[in-house]
């Protein structure tokens, strides 16, 4: 019984982190249709920026947001000067982002060496919640709470603000959007930077329990892909639901069928691709 309760609560914590990671991917891939294979690299880069700031005694939240801004700047530059030229060309975009993923990986190795970094859990968020004799780390619940806040903020932004309406218009029909005076390319740079910032923010949030080390980028990328494909591209609700499904499958799958850990993770994605290729909440692309 205690095992199941621990797993259930932990599933929500992991789901929260996955949402922070994949919401940015959902924006970039779903709205802009860029298969951004450096999303895991943004996560890792953000985590490294974050631990460096934390190491200098910066407040945890300041470090997380600062890492997000720094990574947003890098992401924005890559989009503005390189990806922009490859608009609509999927294969060159894949190659470019994959190439940058390798470059970022090696630069991180040079700067931060190969040693793993694991910042201490921020003091005011450390400690455990004790329920019915069960320890549960408070920090995982904090991640969940942050994910919920971010989800609501993104939903309001995309669905209820003028900015969101402009983004949606720019995605649906760029020429017409330009005609009515929307600066589509600026918007796209903004969306890309926001996606990168979310990944980096997730990296800092994850650092106290995932730690940061070379190779983290390509461990996180497939998780972002699974979540978005499962939930449906371009749908924030899809990313949210997908994150929690994967969070639960991951936790219960590894506990019950440890030998099939990866099958269980990828099986639902396969089923969704066969039965509902647009994903659980995706729109049918015409």
């Amino acid at each position, binding site marked *: 019984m205690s095992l199941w309760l621990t797993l259930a609560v932990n599933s929500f914590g992991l789901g929260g982190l996955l949402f922070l990671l994949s919401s940015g991917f959902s924006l970039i891939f779903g709205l802009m249709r860029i298969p951004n294979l450096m999303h895991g690299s943004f996560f890792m880069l953000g985590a490294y920026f974050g631990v460096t700031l934390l190491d200098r005694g910066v407040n945890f939240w300041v470090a997380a947001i600062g890492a997000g801004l720094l990574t947003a700047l890098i992401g924005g530059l890559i989009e503005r000067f390189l990806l922009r030229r490859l608009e609509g060309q999927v294969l060159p975009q894949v190659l470019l982002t994959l190439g940058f993923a390798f470059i970022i990986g090696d630069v991180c190795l040079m700067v931060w060496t190969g040693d793993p970094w694991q910042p201490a859990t921020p003091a005011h968020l450390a400690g455990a919640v004790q329920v019915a004799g069960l320890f549960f*780390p408070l920090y995982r619940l904090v991640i969940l709470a942050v994910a919920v806040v971010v989800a609501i903020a993104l939903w309001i932004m995309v669905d209820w603000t003028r900015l969101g309406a402009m983004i949606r218009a720019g995605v649906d029909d760029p020429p017409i959007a330009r005609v009515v005076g929307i600066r589509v390319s600026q918007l796209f740079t903004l969306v890309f930077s926001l996606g990168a910032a979310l990944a980096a923010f997730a990296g800092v949030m994850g650092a106290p*329990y*995932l730690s940061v*080390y*070379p190779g983290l980028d390509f461990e996180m990328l497939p998780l972002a892909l699974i979540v978005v494909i499962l939930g449906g591209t371009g749908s924030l609700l899809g990313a949210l639901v997908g994150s929690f499904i994967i969070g639960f499958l991951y*936790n219960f799958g*590894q*506990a019950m069928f440890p030998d099939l*850990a990866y099958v269980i993770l990828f099986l639902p994605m396969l089923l969704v691709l066969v039965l509902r290729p647009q994903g659980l909440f995706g729109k049918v692309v015409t």
Partner: protein
Amino acid sequence: MPRVTRRAVLAGTAAGTAAAVIGMPAIAQATPFKIGLLTVKTGPLAQGGIQMEQGIMTLLKQRGSTFAGRKVELVSADTGGNPAGAKTKASELIERDNVDVILGPLAAFELLALNDYIRQKGTPLMSLAAAEDVTQRQTNPFIMRPSATSAQCCHVLGDYAAKELKYRRAATISEDFAFGYEQMSGFQRVFEDGGGKVVKKLWPPLVTPDYTPYIAQIGNVDCVANGFAGSNPVKFMRAYADLGMKRIPLLAGWTAMDDALLKSLGDEAVGVVSAAWYSASLDSPVNKQFVADMAKDHNVLPGGYSAGMYIAGQVVEAALQKTGGKSDDKKAFNEALRGVSLQDTPRGPVKFDKYGNVVGDVHIRRCERKGGQLVNTIVKTYPDVSQFWTYGDQAFLANPVYSRDYPPAKNLE
């Protein structure tokens, strides 16, 4: 003005040629001795690979790049941490650079990929990779291991847990690959021979973002033995502490509590008992010098990867001293390497069994916080531990190699 006759020119040329011919061996002797280092400097395994390079570089700097009066040249190659890369780089080192000895590679699957090639080429190789059978049932006359087989330290850990700590029920947890199986099987065998029972064995995949689902299954045991490697121990120990599991003592293999990892760890590591063949806290002049030089040149506390390569370099030096600096007879040089026995290495005395694996001390350490720093304090030393523990080579080799299912776990609950 002396006339240069044709005859004089001829005579002179002949003399010159003769001098060159006579001088040949002397010139050959003066060619530098080449060490090829197969390491990993990029990708996820770079952490250990960079430490390997720092270790051998520290030795070369101490010796002024001269072993037994002969200049030594280090040729470093980055395998990228994969078997294909290891194979390509090994043939580059042997066939293009003509190295006299290879140090490395790092990972077991890299070593396995090279096994046949090295056997063919006959270039001696000293690796830290723990693929046990390379110095056991599939022994290769050109491969040596100056560190330890996977189970060499875990045998000791099992003995200490059963006999000194008097634990009776243990759970094991390690990555789902050969190094994990070999370590945990070694622990299980000796622990159960000592009267304990392994009641749970958990195998998370190599890439596991969150260990909570595994830790939650551990249940009612006296101790948990872990054999994680790379950056995984850092993640694992934090999750273990976060879940309030520190009431159950944690035991660790050498990679899981390597001294080089200490700077990445926090309070979650305090109290962990580990068995390792090297410890930076060892109190000997040669080790103190090594630790001081590593701190000075690379600003790190050395762990097994650096010490292993430093010791491998010392073995090469000792072999060259035996052959008087000669290495052109590969076979004789290989014999000399395998016959090396050293007293003063950072890990203590080192000699090799007939399978090419080291026989040396294994230390039991307890992690403590001293003056703000984490330190692995040695609490007991098992001298001259063989890869066969106390079973004897014949009896040991009659069994299959350690694996996930061997020896069978009879006490699982």
